[in-house]
């Protein structure tokens, strides 16, 4: 993901629909990972605050 919030990915496959499915899966995973990263960061900051 760039600083402007743009996500970029590519997929290579013999089958166009399969390539699209793979590509979208990559985006879904990235969005979920990003969200988990944020949650983790928030959790850690909270823990630091408590210690």
């Amino acid at each position, binding site marked *: 993901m760039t600083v*402007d919030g743009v*996500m970029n990915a590519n997929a290579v496959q013999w089958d*166009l629909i399969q390539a699209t499915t793979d590509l979208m899966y990559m985006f879904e995973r990235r969005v979920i990972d990003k969200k988990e990263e944020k949650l983790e960061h928030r959790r850690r900051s909270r823990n630091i605050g408590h210690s």
Partner: protein
Amino acid sequence: MTAEELVGINKKEVLRAKIESIRLPDVMDKEFATVRPDDRLGDVLAKMTELDLHEIPVSQDGKRMAGLVSYGTVIRRKNLSIDAKVSTIAITPPAVSPDTAITEAAEVLLREGYRQLPIVDNGRIEGVLSRGHILSMLNNIPELRDVPVESIMSPEVRTAKGKDRVVDAVTVMRDLDIRILPVVDDMERIMGIVGFKDVASYNWREKKRQTVGEVVGDSYPADVLVESAMIEDPAIIAPGTTVGKAAEIMLKRNISSLPIAEERELRGIVTRYDLVELVASFRRRDMMYMQITGLEKGDRFEMDQMERVITQSMQKIARIIDPLMFSLHVGKYHNEGVGLSTL
């Protein structure tokens, strides 16, 4: 960059109200050209070229709306005779009235790929709104006017080299659906720009005439180099230039794209599309732009399936983030495998 990222979610609502307080009748052209339903297509295209219009409203009396002729539609329809009547190719444009919010009108311009759009009230054409009108209003909103272009520019720019062939540059522009390519040297310093409109005529030579006793008739791409066809010393702006200044340069020079460079080193590009998109991004939306390029004519079936896959996936993604745009380019490798890339 989204409206939220630029001004923050709280200010977005305030700024939206400010932008939407500018009404379409305050910015649109109230004097405009029209064509009649029984005009010849050839004459209409000549008129559009002369007036530098991509769309023109159709009306019998210059007032009542009877459709719209769009370059895009004409290009997509094959085998059209130049003697065809306008009424056979006119399309019904999306309804935009003088009361439509300017953010929504900006979005319609982008979604439909139009450069200008008739503003219609009760079947009567009240005016024409162009992308240029949206640009000119940016200077009335200091919060938008003073945004540096680097916040909205496209940082990854496809470029051409001076020794590339024009025909290859045209192919790249056509495939990516873009209108200019910055030309750079080996150090990635900008040397000029090559525009689709300027080089379209270089793309093909006239057919050779048949000579006595010899049949030669093939047309083929002319072997012109980009450095011979490029515009040298184009308008270039620095990353810190404001949106207002960029809009002013585009309007003054009647250009649609501005390369962004620091000491001639290319950093990005900003287009009229980006500036109109900035205004459209303030619209309350529950939709996303989707653009798929690079597919061939016979791929219609695949395109429908791809749209379904993308929509399903985007619905999942939209529960977490708010996607604004999805752009996908399909490239074929070795005529069999396919590759997808998105931005």
